[in-house]
């Protein structure tokens, strides 16, 4: 018994370097963020203390909460589109041979291999007033004046989905690959139609992948900054944009910290919901 305890202690020592690293790079900044969020910013000077000004402002200024919910809404929209587009791709990857699967995988992750600026500028060339799509539609006589394809929510969602699709496809593919083909074959041999097999066998068994993909995409979307700035023409406002403005243009670290904590809490809630659903699915 004593030996087992010693073994346990020795294995705990393995965690010491990582723990120190986490303390220095994660917990201390997090505590600083918390302390800063209760500080006061007045006449360009920050006073550390216990003030509720920043939280009061967030709750009562009539705009920060609104932008926060807009960010949640945008993130949910991006997550939904990623799921709708990603599921068929993951299904296809499961069905095709290894060579074709590799090509699809490369296609899906390719946006991650490109610089964010290059990617967004490419979208500008495609979706702009004189972009590829508008030029084609006008030359075919389908429209008389350019469609507003960017500098709005559509442009932002399209550009973000393009990148985050891979974060949906990979967990979905992992979940779908782990489903035993014989279950679907058994359902088919008992007379179930393809739609029924999908709804009653494939979809429920792939729920862990759906939840993992949705959680990942939602969390990433809540923090997305540069793409809305470029593709939304600053008309699509997200909470990270307010945080950036508070820090860069107003030097108001306390307010920015409070908003960052709000974002963290929202992400924490999403993770709790996601793991609860996964537990419920397993049970």
């Amino acid at each position, binding site marked *: 018994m004593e030996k087992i305890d010693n073994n346990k202690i020795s294995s705990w*020592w393995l965690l*010491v*370097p990582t723990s120190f690293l986490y303390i220095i790079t994660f917990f201390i900044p997090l505590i600083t963020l918390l302390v800063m969020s209760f500080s006061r910013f007045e006449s360009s000077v920050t006073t550390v203390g216990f003030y509720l000004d920043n939280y009061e402002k967030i709750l009562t200024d009539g705009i920060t909460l609104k932008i926060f919910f807009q960010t949640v809404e945008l993130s949910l929209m991006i997550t939904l589109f990623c799921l709708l587009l990603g599921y068929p791709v993951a299904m296809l990857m499961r069905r095709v041979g290894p060579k074709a699967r590799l090509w699809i995988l490369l296609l899906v992750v390719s946006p991650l291999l490109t610089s964010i600026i290059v990617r967004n500028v490419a979208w500008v060339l495609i979706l702009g*007033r004189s972009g590829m799509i508008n030029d084609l539609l006008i030359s075919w006589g389908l429209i008389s004046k350019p469609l507003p394809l960017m500098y709005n929510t559509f442009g932002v969602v399209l550009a973000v989905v393009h990148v985050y699709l891979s974060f949906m496809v990979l967990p979905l593919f992992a979940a779908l690959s782990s489903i035993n083909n014989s279950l679907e074959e058994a359902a088919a041999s008992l007379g179930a139609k393809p739609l029924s097999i999908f709804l009653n066998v494939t979809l429920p068994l792939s729920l862990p992948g759906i939840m993992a993909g949705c959680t990942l995409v939602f969390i990433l979307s809540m923090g997305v900054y540069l793409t809305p700035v470029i593709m939304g*023409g600053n008309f699509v406002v997200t909470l990270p944009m307010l945080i950036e403005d508070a820090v860069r243009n107003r030097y108001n670290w306390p307010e920015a910290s409070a908003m960052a904590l709000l974002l963290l809490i929202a992400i924490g809630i999403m993770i709790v919901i996601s793991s609860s659903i996964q537990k419920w699915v397993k049970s």
Partner: protein
Amino acid sequence: MKKNKNKLSTISRREIIKGAGAATATVLVTPYFFVKAHAASDPKHMRMYNFDGNLGDFYTKHWYGPFMEKFDVKMDFIRLKGSRAPLEKVQAQINAGQPETDVLPLHPDQVIFAKRNDLMRNVTRSEIPESKNFYDQFFTEYGPNLVLWCYGLAYNTEKVKPAPTSWKILWDKQYAGKVALNEGLKDQTLQMVNLAFKGSPYPVDAETFKHLSDIRPGLVSLWGSGADAEQLFRNDEIVMTPFWNGRVTKLKKEGLPLEFATPDEGFFVRSSVYGIPKNARNPEMALEWLNWVMGKGPQKKMVEFGYGTPNKLVEHTPEEAKAVIVADPEVVKKAVKEDFTRILDNSASWTDMWTKWKST
């Protein structure tokens, strides 16, 4: 098997403890040595901010390169996005004991913030002999004002006729869907709206935003940086936007049919104070650089690039005078004075109003 396992775990435990101790010590001690090494000051080594895009290329070619060669100095550069130094970061660095740059360019509102938080070293005229050739109003307690830039109206000469003389042309229905405003320095936009409709840049109030709401359906974008606006012109997304003169000069050199107008209601002239942050590693070389860059030669290069200079000795060709704007006393009469204390103190409420406006 069990015996072997125990033996293995005993040996491993010692090794693990030693290894963990060493690793922990490394994790704890490395930042100390890093900071010490970082703090070591080499008199022939400077750390400077540089800008992105054309202005950054200009600095490298005309303000940093020749100085390094002449004074046999090594410079490391930190590239900035846009023209605004990250004062929020530098403030934290100064408080921690060492800023990452030896020279800090400050926008006018940043100067007030720096003063309130005691971030800059005082610089006197006697420390910079070249300051004798500068107009008095362009030398501050923290250093010289360099790079005089104007905020006026950039327009496409082929698509906007006749040449605009008023900011109100942005509200003209015939240009709806072809104009943009800047969010990067939103205070300038708000002051511009007030100039157009109230004749004075202040106060920023509900009426200001009512006029912004009127223009809102016709706006293509609220661009964030000068580079974004350049792209809007290049892609033919817009025909007109409030802009800075140097960017227009650059686009004209690229062959775009653009011109810069100074509306009759007034326009703005700004410049940056180049100073030395407190606890800078090499203030002596920073002073040397400031003195050199204020000289006639480097200042003439800036004029050729498209921005104005406070150096009295620099002469302008007619084209240069037209491009830099501030060389023409008649045009300068239209320049409107800005209240940067008000801008800084109201930035929170203006931002709230701005965010509310654009998200409705």
